[in-house]
């Protein structure tokens, strides 16, 4: 029998370790039960869409790094693909293969952080997080070898990549791929059957496929509901139609399914990279001939990719000048966040943190 109590408003965030950045929630509680939450966003708003209008088409690429800073390469790639579509640039085949390899490496790196911090929120305090960071570090090492930096890579260019890969990159990547499946097995062994984790996450924060589609949720959160939707299969960009891979789906759309889907996606990414390495042309240009000050013709273009967090799209409008007339970003994290209120109603405050962590958002992309 519940005791009738006065609703209590609790402020969580913006500076709180489990809000993954500067997210703020105004939660209305009845005892420990969450009645309603009101997300307050905008603490990291930098006006990136407006800043694009004052920069050249190439000059905006470094700023896209700062959107979803966990997976910068995917952001670079989505923007470059939109401008390539607008300007009618054809990317060389070697560059496309390398883009696939890099995008899948980025997916592994992102999911390692997503799952690590999710387990951190569940109370597995920093042990799995640091185990996963160990492997992310290896991917970041490889990205550092390519681009010279470890977080804001700025490696993609309009028409390909900024530079060719160094000679020592491919052997190092092969060594990484040989070891990675064993490490994913290790994570599975560490926590897949852990009773505490199962009790905290199974059946918690359920969202149905219909509701997820109505909220235009994409990525692992949508696939965890059992709805198989992956842009790599649904609208193959780059060369994804040449590779064999499965789209892992969940059963019922709870936090545990989201965790499992991300784990399986890492295995599939390893599979894709292995196939891409086999077919990668050893010689060839990595960058199409694109003028430094690009003037795309008047018009607009939208390109979307399956970024690690879901569908990431860039809508670029050009008025035939050196700067974009307008850039609109379809942010994955913001749209995935829209169903948070539905998910957390009726759960306790401790579950609120777990559910929020399982969505895997990046505040740089939410606030832009």
């Amino acid at each position, binding site marked *: 029998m519940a005791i009738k109590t006065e609703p209590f408003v609790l402020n969580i965030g913006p500076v709180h370790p489990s809000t993954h950045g500067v997210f703020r929630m105004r939660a209305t509680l009845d005892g420990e039960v969450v009645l309603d939450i009101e997300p307050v966003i905008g603490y990291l708003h930098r006006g990136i869409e407006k800043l694009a209008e004052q920069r050249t088409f190439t*000059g*905006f690429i470094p700023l896209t790094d700062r959107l979803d800073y966990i997976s910068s390469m995917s952001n670079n790639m989505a923007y470059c693909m939109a401008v390539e579509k607008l300007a009618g640039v054809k990317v060389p085949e070697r560059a496309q293969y390398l883009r696939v390899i890099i995008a899948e490496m980025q997916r592994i790196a992102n999911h390692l952080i997503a799952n690590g911090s999710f387990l951190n929120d569940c109370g597995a305090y920093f042990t799995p997080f640091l185990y996963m960071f*160990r492997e992310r570090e290896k991917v970041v090492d490889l990205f550092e070898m390519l681009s010279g930096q470890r977080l*804001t890579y700025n490696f993609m260019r309009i028409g390909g990549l900024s530079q060719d890969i160094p000679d020592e990159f491919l052997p190092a990547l092969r060594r990484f791929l040989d070891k990675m499946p064993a490490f994913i097995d290790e994570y599975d062994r560490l926590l897949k059957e852990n*009773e505490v984790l199962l009790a905290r996450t199974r059946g918690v924060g359920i969202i149905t496929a219909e509701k997820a589609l109505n909220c235009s949720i994409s990525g692992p959160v949508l696939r965890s509901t059992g709805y198989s939707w992956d842009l790599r299969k649904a609208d193959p960009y780059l060369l994804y139609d040449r590779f064999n891979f499965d789209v892992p789906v969940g059963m019922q759309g709870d936090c545990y399914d989201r965790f499992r889907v991300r784990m399986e996606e890492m295995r599939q990414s390893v599979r894709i990279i292995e196939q891409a390495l086999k077919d990668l042309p050893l010689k060839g240009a990595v960058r199409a001939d694109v003028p430094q000050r690009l003037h795309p013709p008047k018009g607009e273009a939208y390109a979307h990719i399956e970024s690690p967090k879901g569908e990431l799209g860039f809508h670029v409008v050009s008025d035939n000048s050196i700067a974009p007339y307008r850039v609109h970003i379809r942010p994955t994290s913001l749209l995935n966040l829209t169903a948070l209120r539905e998910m957390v109603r009726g759960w306790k405050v401790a579950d609120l943190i777990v559910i929020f962590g399982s969505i895997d958002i990046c505040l740089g992309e939410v606030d832009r």
Partner: protein
Amino acid sequence: MSKFERYGLGILKGMTVTIRQLLLRHPTVVQYPEQRLNTSRRIRGNELIWSRERCTGCATCAKACPQGAIEIVTSSNTNNNKYEVETYRVDTGYCIQCGLCVEACPYDALFLGSSYERAKYRRGDIVQSDDALLESPERPASGYYHPRLAEKMPEQTLLIDKITEKR
């Protein structure tokens, strides 16, 4: 899995991983200020290196800079009929180390630095100009966009190659 869920077997299984890490593996981390790893050959360190000899003052770098951090003043003196670079000034406070200026330079006159501990104690030191931007032993250039320089740099230490298993 669900049959033995109540007995805590999953927790024990997980602990085999942590115990294995404790007993059979070396630590992954290094003690930073004493031990240093080699950075990437293309490292984009936080400084810009400018070559006075090669620079023609075409200002392509200034146009390519997304932040507008580069300022170039070319000969204001019209008497001797020469085109010279008078000032080359970089506001490193605005610089985001994207490397687009190095990429844009048609005369190979710009390099990114390869050092990474470049905090300044005075605000005035953030804006660097002319002689402060030249290459020196304290400011080594990086191989970013200069493959010939990259070949000479020491190979990057990779975590993949680190031996973590105890023999």
